[in-house]
């Protein structure tokens, strides 16, 4: 972590907060990625005025970046079978908890939601324990 990475973190974070503010002020919604993805996958939940265009913007930007700025993406650090198991757990967990790092972590904490404060404490704790076990066992 350098001074530059801290400045970039604050600017990038600010942009994430600004994007979440657009979703709130314009669409009346919480900008939680897992919830948006979850409901967009619902046959009748893919709101064409919010969820679908939001996801197209999010994923489309990533795909453009893959082409024009491929070096910005850090490679996965886990083996492929581990990544698949992790993906399953992230999908199951965020669906049960109704939120992830954005919905609970950013929007929920900012709104001082008790559910979100508990969720963030729990997922930070289990993530840190998981890393400690995986890295130092």
């Amino acid at each position, binding site marked *: 972590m350098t001074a530059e990475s801290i400045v970039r973190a604050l600017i990038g974070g600010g942009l994430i907060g600004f994007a979440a503010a657009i979703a709130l002020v314009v669409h009346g919604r919480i900008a939680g990625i897992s919830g948006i993805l979850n409901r967009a996958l619902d046959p009748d939940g893919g709101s064409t005025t919010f969820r679908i265009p939001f996801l197209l913007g999010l994923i489309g930007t990533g795909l453009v970046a893959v082409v024009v700025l491929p070096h910005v993406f850090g490679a996965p650090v886990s083996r492929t079978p581990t990544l698949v198991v992790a993906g399953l757990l992230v999908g199951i967990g965020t669906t049960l908890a109704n939120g992830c790092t954005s919905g609970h972590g950013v929007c929920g904490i900012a709104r001082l939601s008790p559910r979100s404060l508990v969720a963030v404490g729990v997922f930070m704790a289990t993530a*840190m324990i998981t890393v400690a076990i995986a890295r130092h066992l």
Partner: protein
Amino acid sequence: MTAILAAVAGIVFAVGLIISDMISPSRIMGFLDVTGPWDGTLAFVMAGAIGVYAPIARIAKHRLRYAPTQTAIDKRLVAGAAIFGVGWGLSGYCPGPALVSVGSTIETGLFVAAMIAGIAIARRFTR
């Protein structure tokens, strides 16, 4: 117009994740590994995001038309958050960075496919 602004929000969100390097799993692992040389970048990203969002959310509270319907701190919330944390710790990917990175490597694409499968599984058992 609202659809265009939704796309803009998605683009700005993705640019924020890219600028702050949240799309590098090693960066996330550096934050989650409290026993190693700690990387606090994620905390600054959250501080930046909450710093911008919290005052706007306070002023524009009445704009939240689709407020979260659940208020109870129940087993489902705690178990779900615990399961999500294990997956996050195993990979360094949470849903936003995973979707932005979906085309960057085949492995990341597999993670996203598994995540979508996980969503389908959880729905099947909870409805």
